């Protein structure tokens, strides 16, 4: 099968133009994951700025707006994204070096209580209590220490701290969740915003900053009501121009209504409220799902692009709604086509 261009032509307009402070929602289900789409977002944002650095004005396709990306990932590691991006011809580590790109790791140490010295200044250590001592003998994590410094550090500092090495390179920050309720979310937000500010500091006038958050619904599932984190608290958290991926499997969406007199379990209710609430705010919603007619050899799934509740009537023809098929080839290339086309 012929290799595909990294950006499917049908999708290019949806991947590369974002109005100020808009929210784009990508929903996926277990059988139709959104990783490939996230990678296309990354590529659309980063490859142009990479090419315009090397050969200026090589492509007139993307309106010439340069972009920086801050990428927060909650369920997949840096290693995963780096390898996958490489298959698209995108060197994330190098881009991170050039400060085009910043990766925030929300996976590896999210529930790992950091050492006392690393505590975020803004948060009272109420949730920490007596734990820090027990942690001290463990190997020091290089990601957190340089992050406290004003410099956009870890890429430069990463080598100087003795341990893990290459894999840690390019991770701007690791997120830690401690405390409860909004205080915990505030701390996370602060961490993310500090990275955003670092990026913004080195930004040229005409550059745009894109925030991609991969599967923050993990927090809902992993913390739950006992931590005082619900859909409302989560939704308040996203206040940037953002691409967000969420799961929309039907158990998570459709079990929320009380059926047969049984009250719905909290995670279903919260997840549905979170996802649907965000869809109400989103400018566009990209929904991935299975083929209704069953598995096919040359179709991986269906992508529906709709306007969300936050789409403003002002931009009449800015966003065309579509229902297209996609196929992920063995080499990672993706073909996107309409029904009946091949």
């Amino acid at each position: 099968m012929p290799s595909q261009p990294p950006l499917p032509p049908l999708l290019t307009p949806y991947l590369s133009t974002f109005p100020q402070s808009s929210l784009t929602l990508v929903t996926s289900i277990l059988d139709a994951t959104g990783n490939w789409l996230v990678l296309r977002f990354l590529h659309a944002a980063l490859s142009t700025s990479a090419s315009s650095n090397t050969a200026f004005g090589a492509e007139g396709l993307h309106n010439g707006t340069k972009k920086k990306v801050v990428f927060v990932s909650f369920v997949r590691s840096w290693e995963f994204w780096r390898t996958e991006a490489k298959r698209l011809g995108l060197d994330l580590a190098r881009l991170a070096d050039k400060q085009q790109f910043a990766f925030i790791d929300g996976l590896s140490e999210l529930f790992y209580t950091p050492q006392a010295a690393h505590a975020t200044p803004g948060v009272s250590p109420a949730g920490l209590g007596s734990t820090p001592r027990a942690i001290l003998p463990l190997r020091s994590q290089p990601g957190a220490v340089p992050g406290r410094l004003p410099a956009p550090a870890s890429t430069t500092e990463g080598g100087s701290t003795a341990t893990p090495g290459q894999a840690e390179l390019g991770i701007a920050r690791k997120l830690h969740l401690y405390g409860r309720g909004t205080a915990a979310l505030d701390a996370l937000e602060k961490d993310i915003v500090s990275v955003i500010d670092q990026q913004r500091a080195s930004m040229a006038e005409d550059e745009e900053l894109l925030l991609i958050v991969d599967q923050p619904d993990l927090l809902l599932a992993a913390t739950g009501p006992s931590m005082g984190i619900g859909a409302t608290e989560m939704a308040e958290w996203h206040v940037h121009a953002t691409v967000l991926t969420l799961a929309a499997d039907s158990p998570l969406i459709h079990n929320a209504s009380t059926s047969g007199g049984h009250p719905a379990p909290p995670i279903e209710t919260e997840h549905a409220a979170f996802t649907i609430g965000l869809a109400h705010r989103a400018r566009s919603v990209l929904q991935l799902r299975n083929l209704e007619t069953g598995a096919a050899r040359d179709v991986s799934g269906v992508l529906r692009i709709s306007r969300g509740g936050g789409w403003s009537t002002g931009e009449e023809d800015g966003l065309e709604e579509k229902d297209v098929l996609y196929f992920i080839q063995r080499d990672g290339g993706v073909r996107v086509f309409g029904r009946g086309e091949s």
Partner: protein
Amino acid sequence: MAPVTLSHRRTHNLLLISKLLSLRDSASPLTLLLDSLEQPATPLIQEYLRRAKLSKAHVTLIAFETLKQPEGVDAFVSARRKSAGDIFKEVGAAYQPAAATNPSRRHLIIIDSINPLLNSKRADPGFHLPSFLSSFLAPTSPSAPKAGASLVVTYHQDVPETPPQNPYSPAPLSVLTYLATSIITLHSFAHILAQKAARDRSLAAPVFGLDEEQDGVLLGRSDKLVGTRTAEGIVLELEHRRKSGRGVLEWYLLPPESRYSPQQVKEVVTLLDDNPLYNPPTEPDRDAGDEEPAIDQGDGPGEGGRILYDMGEEDDFDEEEDEI
């Protein structure tokens, strides 16, 4: 339906919606907009803003969802992470200068989504929805200006509610629908047409979006529903409670914004029943008054059989030109 009652209904109900949307005579102090992902309330809010601008009313937006101040909003109050009491204070503070200069100015308060307030985990135990809403409408201090404030509250029907802390208190939606003086439920025109087409053929009405209960489908709305490309606009299902207690139910159609100029004063909303796509005219109007041609019975054998025809204006008969 007899034509007399339809025209009667048309006059009355168009006047009513015009009054409601333009906030005239404080016809509805608390309007509840029930929307869903299939038809968000944004176009209707835009219409409220447009009319408020024309009538120079002061608009306050209490924003739980909106990030940027939209055009036409005079005071923007971000409600993120704020308690009900703080929100109320901020709204009062934002309105104060405008009220001081022109106390008779109408005041429109829009809450872009009430759901976060109802579902918040941090809700203080003292939070009481009816008193929160009525605090905007009834100025607490007697010195406060007596300008008629109207509250427009959007509620997303498809966002599930968290179970109430007190199992004996009514669900927030019940409280809202009980308090509201008008309830406008929004529907997509294309969906209404599709459902009507199915009903006309005695088929089960199709469902869209979340109701499809399909894995991975949140939104089913699409502009390109087969055969309804021109079916733009939104359908408003209005329930208005008069002071007398009598309710008015009516279905309206709000055309898309691009169809009229922002300055247009004439009513743009029409009755849904008047729309040719929804209610296709069965036959042209001209035929309505006509009867079957009468045939002359004649007096005796051999006579009669002629068609009797009274010439009308529309025949444009010229005596001199056409001789019979």
